[in-house]
């Protein structure tokens, strides 16, 4: 496989010239516009809703409420987590009518929907809806929600504990802890964040009465996953749900799920017989987009006298918000369980997960989806243990890495790791980062009055194994005989049009511009997985290669016929079928054109395969400088060494790492969803209250590549979409901590905002002064 460094993606031209087509750009003839009334109470009974005045407002056509949602029966959201715990209990799925009925449970919950002739008129009419609420006590913190006497959100979720699940061998872990020479304990928080892809949510939904079918235009991560969820929520058969998908302005897990607004738009479109369009404002998005992370993690690591890890145990308290999203619980429970051992040989492991309901926006997958969280607690434990044992952090890791000869490595919890070279990655990263030269940089920073620290992470993650058992790819030739590749994946910025076309073109030995990718096309009968969990390249991308190989074999007899030879006498290379003696040849594409217009085209084909999870890993090393006068942290240097197997397109892979690291930096230094404890009001409801990473937060990344080719798929690739996020949380926090440890600060929780860091420094200084006295 060639390694392409150039950028200039296939999708770029339309996107840089303003010709991208995003959800809010979609319009259907005769469409009406919707606006949602959202609860401004975090927990309350709905005593009454009066919609009469709103209906009289100019342009108003209809007002829908929870009664309409119940009448339609749209109240059961599907959930990806299907396993039971050791006691045989399953997840509880509290009902969530697509418009609230009887009670609201978080600020931002959809209470009513106005449909009007224009979006402005719909928004105006919202003000005329009168809702009487009777307030109920509020709980916004997951640990507090578990306390006796906490406000109860759902009658069928006693104590707000929706599900408790554990994995590993508790007895073996307890035994190992008894034998430990040293135990390191930590409690860390992965704060709740908002994915905030730059494109707000939007949808246009029309109803076709003749076919009893719906036409749906919305942002998505892929047609199959979304169709399944829409059908599960609404009871409408999948073949009556016609999705028309297009450019997507980022997702990061936020668009993998069906939302209540989708269901409400379907009810309105059918009731009114006209398409209905809704475009979320960013303010609505902060309130009602699925949030991410929100986990309190306690970890303990047992270590023997030689610095070898004996056992680890974890307790996760996962804040799921007021209702379960389809993806949130699997993200917070299943995904971290796969990698509880990190990159280390830890013989005994145990993890306990509690899924908790609070009066906050529902939580779902967010880039990494549980993988960065488990990696973060492990790496913080290792960093802390190294400090406590006075062993160099790289050296402690080396003593405990899963060795090269141990693969495939079956972890004591859920994972089976494919081959990786953790020590190789670490060694390359240490060199690239000039780890040995760090003391001089720290001293130089000190002269400038800055606290400089270095932090490292060595992490691994299991990319999505796939919800759907197969990934299928179709290759078809259109009326002009041009090659088109069909997949149910859907890029939200990952550049599939470039990489998938490149895979097919490289396999066939033709120019990539002769291959066109078509994603999530309505009416194509293909199975496969959506784009999420770093999966599409290793899943759909691999099958692109299989399909291209199949195409050569399918074309061979036709080429032989055209050349008047036997198929065995025809050789294929670089896009050409050639006779053995080289005297006669025909190009694959010319052959396809010869048959253009045939229905079906004789070269059309479908290829499929089951592709398991891959295990990308790497070592990231960060240097952070803190100004003790202001508490402001800056990333002074960042080195990444990643093993994502075979790289198909370097520019795109680097872009994924850049973006992932920056997202990690956002969570580490700024981002945090804040709710007021007493009222449950969202305090971080706009880009001025919520610190999104800005240009310069990550100045540059020293990129290094240490691939161990994956044997799980024909490309040899490992998913890279989330690696940057998984590695950066711990590298950045431990770098900051390394800067602060000389002051006696040995714990900080994300986000390391300037006030939080400054206050810690002040407290530490006071403590030192007190001691000196």
């Amino acid at each position, binding site marked *: 496989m060639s390694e392409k460094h150039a950028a200039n993606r296939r999708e770029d031209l339309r996107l840089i010239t303003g010709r991208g087509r995003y959800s809010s750009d979609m319009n259907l003839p005769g469409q009406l516009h919707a606006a949602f009334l959202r609860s401004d109470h975090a927990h309350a009974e709905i005593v009454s809703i009066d919609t009469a005045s709103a209906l009289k407002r100019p342009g108003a056509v209809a007002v829908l409420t929870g009664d309409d949602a119940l009448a339609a029966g749209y109240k059961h959201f599907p959930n990806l987590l299907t396993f039971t715990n050791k006691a045989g209990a399953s997840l509880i799925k509290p009902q969530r009518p697509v418009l609230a009925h009887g009670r609201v449970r978080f600020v931002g919950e959809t209470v009513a929907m106005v449909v009007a002739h224009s979006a402005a008129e719909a928004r105006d009419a919202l003000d005329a809806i009168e809702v009487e609420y009777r307030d109920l006590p509020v709980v916004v913190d997951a640990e507090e929600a578990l306390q006796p006497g906490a406000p109860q959100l759902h009658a069928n979720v006693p104590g707000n504990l929706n599900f408790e699940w554990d994995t590993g061998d508790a007895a073996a872990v307890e035994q190992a802890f008894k034998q430990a020479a040293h135990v390191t304990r930590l409690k860390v928080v992965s704060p709740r964040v908002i994915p905030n*892809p730059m494109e*707000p949510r939007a949808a246009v939904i029309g109803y076709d009465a003749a076919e009893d079918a719906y036409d749906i235009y919305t942002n998505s991560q892929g047609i199959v996953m979304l169709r399944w969820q829409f059908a599960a929520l609404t009871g409408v058969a999948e073949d009556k749900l016609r999705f028309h998908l297009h450019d997507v302005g*980022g997702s990061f897990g936020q668009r993998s799920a069906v939302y209540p607004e989708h269901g409400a738009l379907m009810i309105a479109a059918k009731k009114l017989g006209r398409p209905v369009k809704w475009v979320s404002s960013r303010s609505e998005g902060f309130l009602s987009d699925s949030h991410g992370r929100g986990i309190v993690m306690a970890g303990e690591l047992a270590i023997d006298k030689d610095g070898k890890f004996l056992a680890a145990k974890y307790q996760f308290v996962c804040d799921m918000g007021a209702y379960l999203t389809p993806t949130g619980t699997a993200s917070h429970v299943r995904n971290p369980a796969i990698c509880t051992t990190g990159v280390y040989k830890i013989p005994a492991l145990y993890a306990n997960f509690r899924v908790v309901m609070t009066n906050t926006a529902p939580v779902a997958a967010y880039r990494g989806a549980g993988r960065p969280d488990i990696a973060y607690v492990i790496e913080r434990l290792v960093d802390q243990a190294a400090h406590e044992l006075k062993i160099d952090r790289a050296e402690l890791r080396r003593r405990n890495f899963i060795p090269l000869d141990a693969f495939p490595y079956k972890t004591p919890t859920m994972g089976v790791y494919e081959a990786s070279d953790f020590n190789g990655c670490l060694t390359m990263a240490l060199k690239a980062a000039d780890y040995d030269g760090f003391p001089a940089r720290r001293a130089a920073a000190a002269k400038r009055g800055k606290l400089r620290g270095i932090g490292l992470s060595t992490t691994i993650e299991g990319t999505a194994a796939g919800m759907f058992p197969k990934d299928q790819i179709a290759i078809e030739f259109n009326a002009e005989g041009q090659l088109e590749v069909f997949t149910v994946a859907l890029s939200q910025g990952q550049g599939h049009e470039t990489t998938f076309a490149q895979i097919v073109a490289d396999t066939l030995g033709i120019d990539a511009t002769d291959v066109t990718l078509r994603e999530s096309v309505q009416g194509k009968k293909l199975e496969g997985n959506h784009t999420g969990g770093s999966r599409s390249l290793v899943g759909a991308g691999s099958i692109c290669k299989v399909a291209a190989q199949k195409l050569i074999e399918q074309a061979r007899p036709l080429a032989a016929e055209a050349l008047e030879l036997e198929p065995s006498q025809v050789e294929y290379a670089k896009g050409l079928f050639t006779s053995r003696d080289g005297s006669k040849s025909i190009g694959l594409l010319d052959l396809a054109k010869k048959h253009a217009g045939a229905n079906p085209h004789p070269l059309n084909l479908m290829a499929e395969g089951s592709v398991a999870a891959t295990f990308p890993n790497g070592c990231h090393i960060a240097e952070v400088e803190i100004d003790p006068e202001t508490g402001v942290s800056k990333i002074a240097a960042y080195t990444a060494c990643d093993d994502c197997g075979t790289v198909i397109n370097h*520019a795109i892979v680097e872009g994924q790492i850049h*973006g992932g690291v920056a997202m990690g930096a956002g969570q580490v230094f700024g981002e945090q969803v804040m709710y007021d404890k007493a009222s449950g009001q969202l305090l971080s409801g706009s880009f001025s209250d919520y610190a999104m990473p800005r240009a310069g937060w990550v100045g540059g990344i020293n990129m290094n590549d240490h691939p161990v080719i994956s044997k799980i798929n024909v490309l040899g690739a490992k998913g890279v979409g989330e690696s940057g996020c998984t590695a950066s949380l711990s590298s950045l926090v431990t770098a900051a901590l390394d800067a602060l440890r000389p002051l006696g600060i040995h714990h900080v929780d994300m986000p390391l905002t300037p006030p939080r860091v400054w206050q810690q420094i002040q407290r530490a200084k006071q403590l030192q002064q007190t001691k000196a006295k």
Partner: protein
Amino acid sequence: MAKIQLTVNGASHTREVEDRTLLVDLLRDHLGLTGTHIGCDTSQCGCCTVHVDGRAVKSCTMLAAQVNGATVVTIEGMASGDKLHPVQQAFTDCHALQCGFCTPGMIMATAALLKDNPQPTDEEIYHGLEGNLCRCTGYINIVKAVKQAAQTLK
């Protein structure tokens, strides 16, 4: 209602719009120029950046009525025929876009930044793009693209 006459990407338009219509809505809904995007409702994300009389403006911060008589350039007006504007070219060359949603605003902001400051330092680029949010790229390649464009435009 307000009657507006303006020039957008070289073409003259006259429209009658509700008084409260924002410039971004005029461009998107009335003129069909959907390359200008809306990423927030608080004038912070910069996705809707266009040029009004040669200056970068977040088009959600202006009423359509305020651009009466003005000359507006949007992302659709940046290329000359098939020839991309150097900033557009730099964005694709440097892989400075992923999902592409912030990109039109980012390109418009960059073009204006380079007009004011043809050879910006890294810090000046960070400052110049402070009002434009990107969630995909980590800005690293965007900064690279700004520098490439600065070289081309020199």
